[in-house]
């Protein structure tokens, strides 16, 4: 039977997947064709080519990119009915050939093993990919202690950011005395620009549930919570559906698979607070309080949710587990470097040609990801830096592009592995402004409990604002560094301890850019409005007079149908002309 599969993850739907789905539904019913099956799947990773449609028939598997309802009609007619694939829109053929094969060539999919292949709303699809076999095997053949040992042997480290060894964490929770214990899945993915966890939850929710079951069995818990961002409605729907299906099959609930062990899973919707990614803040939030962190120890493994031993793992960590149990820890440990085993999923975005989700073995270099997998920088511009780890991370300059993806190596640069957001920037991005952006974010999200984080980040932000407005002085740079180190040393939780990282790493690698702002009062990236001149490109300007009318200070002159000009003396650099010009004729110099 021929199958049409459409990617309906958030990225696909945003790009118009629902219209394409409807188009195919209409085409199938119009043709009264009963031999074509229409299916949905999660994110396939190639977000830059959404809407993605896969056609599977006797000729093989064909993946089309940038599909619109019009293209859908043509694909339906020519490929499905007449058997002629449309080469020009093909991105992949049989998962390995085609125009975009470079994107998948160096990837190694463990966490994303089912994403984009199965229907996330169907437990049968997951079962057909050896789903729930790991928990079956564990319950039948492996003792909790052996399971913990094999997770330790696999070398899996927590993928949420800190990178603590998962198996060791489990052992602490196992050894903690107490009858009632909890498993929490941290799905509060708050980094702006990171969407790995969402894609896993939307594309393969059962693998996360199975990971939680394994964890629950290992530490001896009988209840699991998934703390998911309320901003991920699609993920929550799919998780609820997955839990219901698993309960019907007796995979979750009382007496799991007849083993006598009970394990139920509940979803808790977060209410939007970045700090709730921190373990103790997350626990406070589930308990119904303001999500402020508390001093550790006691660690959650000893006294967590409602004072009981609790183990918290991130979505990606949990999704690795069924594979590790099935394939064996040695196979997982074969991948990667000495201290960083397995694979890591990165959400690639920014100024690169191919943005989306990639899963690579540890030990690959940043350059390989940026150039070989993601195709390099858009519009022929120059690769300047990657920002890793979101607001807690740092910028790694292009000169360190050979740095390997490895916890130690990345930490050496001052950045962190983080949860996996990787934003690539080119030479039109001002690093001072980028650092300011992240600091503004953490400043906003600081819970306010410790002074150094609450007030220190605000003072740093004020200094950065001054620099960007061209009012900075040389001593500001030293002050930024001093403040940054103090905040790092004196904050209580991870948010404060890492908040200065974006500023400190950019100060380290791009100091000349800061100096240009404070000494020469110019922005080398031509980005900071206060430090540039607004100019009119004579080739693009049509002389439509719109900007002359909209300029609040009357700084733009020129006759109708003649190239306009900006009086730099009068210009207040508000940027209004850029937003009103219909011909992209205004630029910053």
């Amino acid at each position, binding site marked *: 039977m021929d199958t049409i599969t459409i990617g309906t993850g958030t*990225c696909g739907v945003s790009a118009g997947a629902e219209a394409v789905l409807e188009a195919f539904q209409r085409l199938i019913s119009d043709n009264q064709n009963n031999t074509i099956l229409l299916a949905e799947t999660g994110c396939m990773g190639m977000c830059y080519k959404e809407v993605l449609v896969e056609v599977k028939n006797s000729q093989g598997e064909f993946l089309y990119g940038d599909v619109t309802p019009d293209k859908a009609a043509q694909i339906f007619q020519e490929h499905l009915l007449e058997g002629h694939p449309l080469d020009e829109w093909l991105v992949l053929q049989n998962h390995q050939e085609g125009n975009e094969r470079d994107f998948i060539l160096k990837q190694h999919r463990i966490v994303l093993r089912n994403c984009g292949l199965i229907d996330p709303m169907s437990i049968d699809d997951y079962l057909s990919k050896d789903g729930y076999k790991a928990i079956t095997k564990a319950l039948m053949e492996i003792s909790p202690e052996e399971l913990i040992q094999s997770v330790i042997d696999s070398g899996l480290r927590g993928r949420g950011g800190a990178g603590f060894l998962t198996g060791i964490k489990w052992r602490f929770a196992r050894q903690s005395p107490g009858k009632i214990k909890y498993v929490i899945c941290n799905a509060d993915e708050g980094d*702006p*620009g990171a969407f790995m966890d969402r894609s896993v939850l939307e594309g393969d929710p059962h693998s996360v549930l199975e990971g939680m079951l394994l964890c629950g069995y290992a530490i001896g818990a009988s209840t699991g919570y998934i703390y998911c961002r309320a901003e991920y409605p699609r993920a929550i729907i799919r998780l609820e559906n997955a839990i219901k299906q698993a309960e019907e099959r007796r995979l979750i609930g009382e007496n799991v698979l007849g083993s006598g062990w009970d394990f139920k899973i509940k979803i808790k*919707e977060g*209410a939007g607070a*970045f700090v709730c990614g921190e373990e103790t803040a997350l626990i406070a939030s589930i*308990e*119904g309080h303001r999500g402020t962190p508390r001093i550790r120890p006691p660690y959650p493994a000893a006294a967590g949710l*409602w004072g009981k031993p609790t183990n918290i793992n991130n979505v990606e960590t949990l999704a690795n587990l069924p594979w590790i149990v099935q394939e064996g820890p040695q196979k997982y440990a074969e991948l990667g470097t000495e201290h960083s085993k397995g694979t890591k999923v990165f959400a690639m975005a920014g100024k690169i040609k191919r943005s989306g989700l990639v899963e690579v073995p540890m030990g690959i270099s940043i350059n390989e990801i940026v150039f070989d997998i993601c195709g390099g920088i858009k519009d022929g511009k120059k690769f300047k830096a990657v920002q890793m780890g979101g607001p807690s991370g740092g910028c790694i300059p292009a000169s360190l592009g050979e740095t390997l993806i490895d916890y130690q190596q990345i930490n050496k640069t001052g950045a962190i592995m983080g949860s996996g957001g990787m934003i690539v*920037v080119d030479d039109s991005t001002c690093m001072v402004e980028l650092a300011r952006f992240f600091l503004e974010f953490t400043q906003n999200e600081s819970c306010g409990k410790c002074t150094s984080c609450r007030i220190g980040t605000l003072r740093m932000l004020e200094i950065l604002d001054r620099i960007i407005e061209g009012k900075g002085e040389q001593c500001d740079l030293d002050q930024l560094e001093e403040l940054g180190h103090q905040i790092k040393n004196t904050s209580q939780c991870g948010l404060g301890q890492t908040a200065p990282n974006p500023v400190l790493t950019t100060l380290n690698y791009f100091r000349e850019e800061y100096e240009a702002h404070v000494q020469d009062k110019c922005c080398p990236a031509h980005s900071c409005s206060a430090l540039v001149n607004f100019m009119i490109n004579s080739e693009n300007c049509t002389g439509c007079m719109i900007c002359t009318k909209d300029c609040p200070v009357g700084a733009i002159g020129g006759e109708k149908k003649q190239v306009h000009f900006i009086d730099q003396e009068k210009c207040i650099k508000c940027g209004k002309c850029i937003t009103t010009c219909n011909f992209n004729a205004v630029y910053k110099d």
Partner: protein
Amino acid sequence: MGATLEHHEPKRGIISNLKTAFWQFNNTPGQLIPLLQRAQETEGYISEMAMKYISGITEIPESTVYGVITFYRQFRLRPQGEFVVRLCDGTACHVNDSRLLKEIIEDELNLEGSDTTADGLFTLELVACLGCCSLAPVIMVNDQTYGRLTPQTLRKTLKKYRRLGRELIKEREEKCNLEIGA
């Protein structure tokens, strides 16, 4: 705290919805946030009445409930406009000039320092990440996503919604007149 809360007519069903939710949660610990979420789902924001009611049934002091509401970004103490424009300010959108889009939205909708327009039609909300980074820069108007925006396409999109807004007001006025006439 009353000073920061505006008075609006409570939506019908808010109390019964909260009652049902309270019964469903069965007085389990940690029910406060789900209850607040239910209140916001019903009314679009958390009204003073809902807050007081929740405080009463859970026996959590109003001051604590208020503290929880203001801590989380999701909760609102004021109603939103008919059209909620969510501007993504995630990193990918930011490096693709989302701040410029913010200025355009404020200009096009005449938002002067406030997040909701005077006629109550539009609310601008800055969000950390909408999760479709490959379409950056992105906005969402209610449930519809618009990606790969330029100043021109953004203005065009907003103009479309302003037109819809004007029609909505006209419809309401007509309905109102009819009711008065009848």
